[in-house]
């Protein structure tokens, strides 16, 4: 946690600002009178599915026009002023790309669209592909890429024009634990270079590992904004359920079963749930309930890195994050 950038102060420059910004889709409200400032550095945007995170990011990146209020990025309205895209990069949550292009072709294409010559696009794309560790895979067609590789290619494309602000919509979705660690490292590196990074997620722990500053959205409204530790202390007693996919479920469980914060562990296989005697032969899912999920994640991280335990995915279950938000709503 020591490499997490310090919290913004009153002197920290503001890179983006929303004032009374609302977005309606017909009768459905996507964002409701949001007023906030985003300081230089890393900002986490947290909220359960349907909270309005994507709408928030699409408005911030000028893909949506506010129904009411204003949005400014470096003093420019991104909906009307296309120059905002010279200083801002966006990495969407959608997995889709130009499937029949190679990764390198795609990143170079975004460079040409950003206004660079062919030679400059080639040079920049090589730099960014290396940054996201995709240099050696970039000559392959995108349709053969895994979820994590697609995420990296999208990030390289978002970085090709050297933006001052990078907006990332659910960038850690579907990544394996090592992929997550590598991605988080890239985000920290970007921030260390003096760029601002906005990362959305529905998993509190992911944001917590990255920044101390966060915005929590719930039903289109800002529920909390500021120091993540303040929110953390509020939800400390609220258990969170983690779902862990691993072909070695019992071995994986052995690393967390002794933790004080773990209140239960269930093994699930092919739709059946049972508490003991899980076979190691087929991939399994462990459902872990913990009052301090960060301790579970730290233990798992250690198991993966030091003991080479195979873990395919870790996810916080949505309904539980919803529960946290309901808890916060009740508290406020």
């Amino acid at each position, binding site marked *: 946690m020591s490499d997490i950038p310090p919290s913004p102060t009153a002197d920290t420059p503001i890179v983006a600002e929303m004032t009374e910004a609302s977005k309606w889709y017909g009768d459905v409200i996507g964002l409701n009178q949001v007023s906030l400032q985003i300081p230089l550095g890393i900002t986490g945007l947290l909220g359960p599915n349907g909270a309005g995170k994507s709408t928030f990011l699409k408005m911030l990146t000028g893909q949506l026009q506010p129904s009411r209020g204003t949005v400014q990025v470096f003093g420019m309205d991104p909906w009307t002023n296309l120059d905002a895209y010279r200083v801002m990069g966006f990495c969407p949550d959608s997995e889709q790309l130009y499937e029949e292009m190679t990764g390198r*072709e795609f990143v170079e294409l*975004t460079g040409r669209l950003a206004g660079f010559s062919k030679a400059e696009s080639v040079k920049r794309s090589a730099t960014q592909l290396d940054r996201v560790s995709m240099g050696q895979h970039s000559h392959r067609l995108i349709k053969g890429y895994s979820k994590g590789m697609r995420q990296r290619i999208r990030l390289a494309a978002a970085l090709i024009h050297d933006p001052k602000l990078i907006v990332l919509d659910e960038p850690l979705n579907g990544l394996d634990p090592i992929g997550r660690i590598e991605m988080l490292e890239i985000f920290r590196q970007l921030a260390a270079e003096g760029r601002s990074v906005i990362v959305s997620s529905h998993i509190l722990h992911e944001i917590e590992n990255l920044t101390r500053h966060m915005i929590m959205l719930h039903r289109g409204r800002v529920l909390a904004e500021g120091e993540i530790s303040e929110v953390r202390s509020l939800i400390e007693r609220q258990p969170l359920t983690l779902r862990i996919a691993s072909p070695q479920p019992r071995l994986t469980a052995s690393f967390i079963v002794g933790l004080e914060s773990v209140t239960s562990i269930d093994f699930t296989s092919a739709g059946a749930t049972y508490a003991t005697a899980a076979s190691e032969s087929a991939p399994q899912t462990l459902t872990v309930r913990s009052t301090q999920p960060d301790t579970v994640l730290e233990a798992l991280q250690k198991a993966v890195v030091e003991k080479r335990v195979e873990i395919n995915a870790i996810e916080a279950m949505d309904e539980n994050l919803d529960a946290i938000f309901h808890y916060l709503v009740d508290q406020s």
Partner: protein
Amino acid sequence: MINLIAATWKLSLYQVWNRKRRWITVALMLFPVVIVGVAAILGTPEKADFYENFYQKFVTVALGSILIPFVALFWGTGALTDEIEGKTLVYLWTRPRHRGFLIFCKVVGSWLWLIIMAFLGVGAVYLYAYYNAPAGGLAENLPVLLWDWRALALAAIAFSSLGFLLSVLTKRPLVYGLLIAYMWELIPEYGPGFFQRISITQQMQALATHKEEKEASFAQKLIEQVPITEVEALITLLVIIIVCVAGGIWMAGQREFLSDDPARNQ
């Protein structure tokens, strides 16, 4: 500007010639050639004017009214809708480029393939008809080939521009485009004169058939089926193209294009 053109050209090539579509594109391009080939093998004409009639019908009906409008609308609407459906629009929309102009550049890329397609179609039927026609040879009728190629190319560009405009205005542009091409475009044949003045197919036919000019007042042109002159047809097609392109470029910069609009999903 050169970088934008290079990038949109690549996108246009991707739209028309990507690995999934290239065989469809080849088939569409060679379709008229195949039809002419079949006609050449099966046809046993007895009437002297068979070849000229076949040529004219093939150019104005098979190519100009059926195949070219379909392909032009397909590619014209696809420039934007492919990006929306493929969820790749975000990579174009978050670049410092005018959105409408960017998509328009992509549409222009497909015009080259439409022009080639028109040339292949007219060229094939021209070779067949005027090689066999008793009334004249290939060299003498070369201007006919060039006129008709121009007529079909302009009609193709007009339909493509219409497709572009529809794609920024509606959610199902190809459906509306096909309704216009195959239903609306039939009305002018039988309706008052005014209708043929705003029909792309009628303008194309006027350019291709070289009807004699007839003196007529403005009122007559509105009511009666007065043949459209070459100049009128050229001007009308250019106006249609300019209006559709300008409208499309402007509208694309004004509208939101969301594929995951929650209101739409409800």
